[in-house]
């Protein structure tokens, strides 16, 4: 009888007249030995390029999606282009750049913004009139927001002056220290570059400081 190790593996079942409980030892046969030798000899002439073909296939067959993606990004490959394709690509890039420029340009330009706050006179014995001026050529509206108007973003709009993108407003302030900033188009906070910045800011954007008094600037 066969033990478990001798039984066929891989789910093979006995078929037909397979007698699994009978030990079979095929006798050696010189004719079959000669046949085997002849087959070995015939097999000696193999294609020497097989190894190269296998390795070439492997080198061009990435294993797994990650390696495929990595190879796609890192492996140089020939690219065929046509003049019309180049023109279309350049045109698309130009349109994209213009659109991006218009979007960000409409929000004001940091390098184009200049401002000045100055005392223009005394409203009463206890107050001063301060003129705020800012240059923001691409802005569509500008407000000055500070502790003097309760940080109301709508309370003190500036008025455009001429065609140069200069905005101005006059505000009556009491003597003392005031913090403020400009709000461009309702979303972009700008400090006044002509005055000192406040030491701290609770909201993440710096404020400017103006001292109003007998010797206010």
């Amino acid at each position: 009888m066969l033990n478990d190790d001798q039984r066929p593996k891989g789910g093979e079942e006995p078929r037909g007249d397979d007698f699994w409980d009978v030990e079979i030892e095929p006798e050696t046969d010189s004719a079959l030995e000669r046949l085997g030798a002849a087959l070995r000899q015939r097999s000696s002439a193999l294609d020497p390029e097989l190894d190269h073909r296998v390795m070439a296939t492997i080198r061009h067959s990435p294993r797994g999606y990650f390696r495929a993606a990595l190879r796609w990004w890192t492996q140089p490959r020939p690219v065929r282009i046509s003049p019309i394709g180049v023109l279309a690509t350049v045109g698309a890039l130009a349109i994209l750049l213009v659109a991006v420029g218009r979007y960000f340009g409409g929000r004001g330009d940091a390098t184009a913004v200049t401002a000045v706050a100055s005392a223009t006179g005394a409203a009463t014995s206890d107050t001063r009139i301060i003129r705020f001026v800012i240059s923001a050529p691409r802005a569509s509206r500008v407000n000055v927001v500070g502790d003097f108007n309760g940080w109301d973003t709508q309370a003190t709009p500036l008025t455009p002056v001429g065609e140069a993108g200069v905005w101005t407003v006059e505000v009556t302030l009491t003597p003392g220290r005031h913090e403020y900033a400009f709000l461009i188009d309702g979303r972009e906070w700008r400090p006044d570059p002509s005055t000192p910045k406040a030491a701290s800011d609770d909201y993440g954007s710096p404020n400017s400081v103006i001292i109003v008094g007998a010797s206010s600037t």
Partner: protein
Amino acid sequence: MYSTLSDEAVVRRVLAGDDEAYALLVARYRVRFTRYAVHMLGNREDAEEALQDAFVRAWRSLRRCRDPEHFDAWLFRILANRCRTRMARRKRYEATFVQDVRALSSAPADRPPTSGHEDPGYDLAIDRALASLDPDQREAFLLKYVDQMSYEAMATLTGVGVSALKMRVKRAADRLRGLLEERAHVE
């Protein structure tokens, strides 16, 4: 440079990203397994395609080789499956292969190389005899008589029990012996 490495070590190198090390496994098993495939499929072109396919499939799924020490057995099973798939696809052709001697003679480029036997009809007789065997019997006969493997090694390689392999070899031997004797009587 890796020629002294075991199969397991080479497999681990390949899994670590050194794909070029796989060439050693290809070189190590191409002759033995191509010989098997040639005689299983009956022509060299199909055999080399099956072997190339098996090598590439093995590389792609190398992580599923649970016993890298016996990479050869794992590769052999992949190859055996590829050969069976090709045989199934070519079933009609194989029937012709067995029966139409003249068609075989007219397609020398697609046949296995000759043995150099002094009898020019001997190779053709071998082809006919092998092709007439059941694929399982043919496989067992090739491993035993052509690759000269022990039954224990054959069992490791194929995953089939020793007794079943002995039975297959015996049946193949009986069949081949009968065909060869028949041919000798005809001559």
